[in-house]
């Protein structure tokens, strides 16, 4: 038997979801608007979508692009951010570049990228990559900069080379901060994924959503919103599990967006 406190904590997200759906249900019944189906109608449409082979292929294609975009972004951004944090030269070179790219909505770059690379997978994956990179670079950079000097000195005295210090001291010491960036990046990956599919409609979860919107199938639209939202919540929860395990040694951090665990 779980203690009541744990039970409440575990049940809280479920209760929040039920509450949200209840409000939705009541609001839509009250408004009686064609373009605002009830929660129950939307939920009823979910099995249809997930049972449809075509839709499933679309959703899986979205997830694949998201995974590739996110994965490549993380693999490139962490080393770059760490190097920037520990080397003034590297930081001086990349900082202005990133400062310019940072505030630009990545989706706004899509027309140009589409022009050059077409409307296929590469374009969409690239946009996801861009969206994820910046927070991960930024957090890796900040994390690496904050590594205590004496820790690096201790490593140097033990005979670690500069490269070894980066890999074996800076990386673990900055890991909590890096993972914070990755968590933000994961949510951004989902957002850019849908956005990219909205702009370059051809396949994917966003494509289903906006096609349904065009055809006035509002229950499908809302069902897709629920599906995409659930995907985000699940991915975030899984990531948070992994993160918490990796940085058990560090102080608890409270600066997580969308804390959900």
């Amino acid at each position, binding site marked *: 038997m779980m203690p009541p406190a744990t039970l409440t904590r575990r049940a809280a997200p479920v209760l929040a979801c039920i509450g949200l759906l209840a409000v939705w249900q009541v609001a839509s019944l009250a408004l009686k608007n064609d373009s605002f189906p009830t929660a129950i109608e939307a939920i009823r449409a979910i099995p249809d979508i997930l049972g449809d082979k075509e839709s499933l292929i679309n959703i899986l294609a979205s997830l694949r692009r998201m995974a590739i975009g996110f994965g490549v972004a993380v693999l490139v951004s962490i080393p770059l951010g760490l190097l920037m944090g520990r080397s003034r030269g590297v930081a001086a070179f990349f900082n202005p570049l990133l400062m310019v790219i940072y505030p630009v909505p990545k989706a706004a770059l899509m027309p140009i990228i589409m022009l050059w690379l077409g409307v296929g997978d590469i374009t969409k994956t690239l946009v996801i990559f861009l969206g994820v990179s910046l927070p991960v670079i930024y957090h890796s950079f900040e994390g690496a900069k904050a590594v205590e000097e004496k820790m690096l*000195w201790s490593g140097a*005295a033990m005979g670690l080379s500069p490269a070894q210090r980066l890999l074996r001291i800076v990386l673990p010491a900055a890991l909590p901060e890096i993972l914070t960036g990755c968590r933000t990046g994961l949510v951004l990956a989902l957002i850019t994924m849908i956005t990219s599919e909205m702009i370059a409609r051809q396949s994917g979860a966003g494509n289903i959503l906006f096609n349904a919107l065009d055809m006035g199938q509002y229950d499908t639209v809302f069902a897709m919103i629920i599906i995409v939202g659930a995907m985000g919540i699940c991915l975030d929860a899984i990531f948070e599990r992994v993160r918490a395990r990796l940085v058990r*040694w560090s102080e608890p951090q409270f600066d997580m967006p969308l804390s959900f665990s």
Partner: protein
Amino acid sequence: MKVRQNGRGSNDAPHGCGNGRLSGRFLAKLVPYGEASDGMTVVPARSNEWVRPVTSHEPASAIIEIDRVSQVFQTSARRDHVALSDISLTIEEGAFVSILGPSGCGKSTLLYIVGGFVSPTNGTARMKGQAITGPGPDRGPVFQEFALFPWKTVLGNVMYGPRQQGVRAAEAEAQSRTLIEMVGLKGFENFYPKELSGGMKQRVALARTLAYHPEVLLMDEPFGALDAHTRTRLQNDLLNIWERDRKTVLFVTHSVDEAVFLSDKVVMMSKSPGRIREVIDIDLPRPRRRTELLLDPRYQKYVVDIERMFDDGDEAGPAL
């Protein structure tokens, strides 16, 4: 003649005679080299660490030479701040040297220069005749701020150095466990640094540095955060290690009492700019027992003299 003695039986022997290995070094200081080194071979207790006899190059040779070192810091207010001014100091191999001085007089900075972490603005520091250009495992720092690896457990921290030096995992672990026990942290091997108190962290930091057997220990107020009891115990442990391994120790402290108790030499520094005021040789017999020393008039005289000197300095010009 091979002098090798770690015995504790000669506590009350007259100064400079009883303890073979130590008196050898003291003699070398007092008597011209030729006589002192006459057939005298100092062999460290753990000869696999330190095979070369001291006499093979020079008797009582200088291991660290600090030669007219100055350190100027550019402060945020864009003003030059002279932290160290024209410091010259020679530390003999196997000596226990303490640096004593008011807060902010540059003790840590001097230690960083010897460690190779900071390169001095002027002058050079040499280790065994070689100019120090960077850190190395021959000089092991114990920082005031501990600087433990927070993602490693106590055992992981202590094992880190030996593992880096290529010691096999099982062996490194066994050695590390012994060291952890020595610093009184048995049972805490699997704790993370954040789960330790300040004094415990300090002891882990000490064990972590001892674990890779540096020839020179650079200790920055290593016992500052400890209670009196633990402090005394660790002082004794440190002296035991020192007497066994003949490490050279450069030891920063605020405590006059601690400096006199541990050292062969006390370097007194003054503030703004950081200078060496006085180097005092502490001629007290070894091995030293705290309880005996506290009653020893010579010990008391050293402590009182040094404290007086600091008081004089304060009166002469505190805000120089």
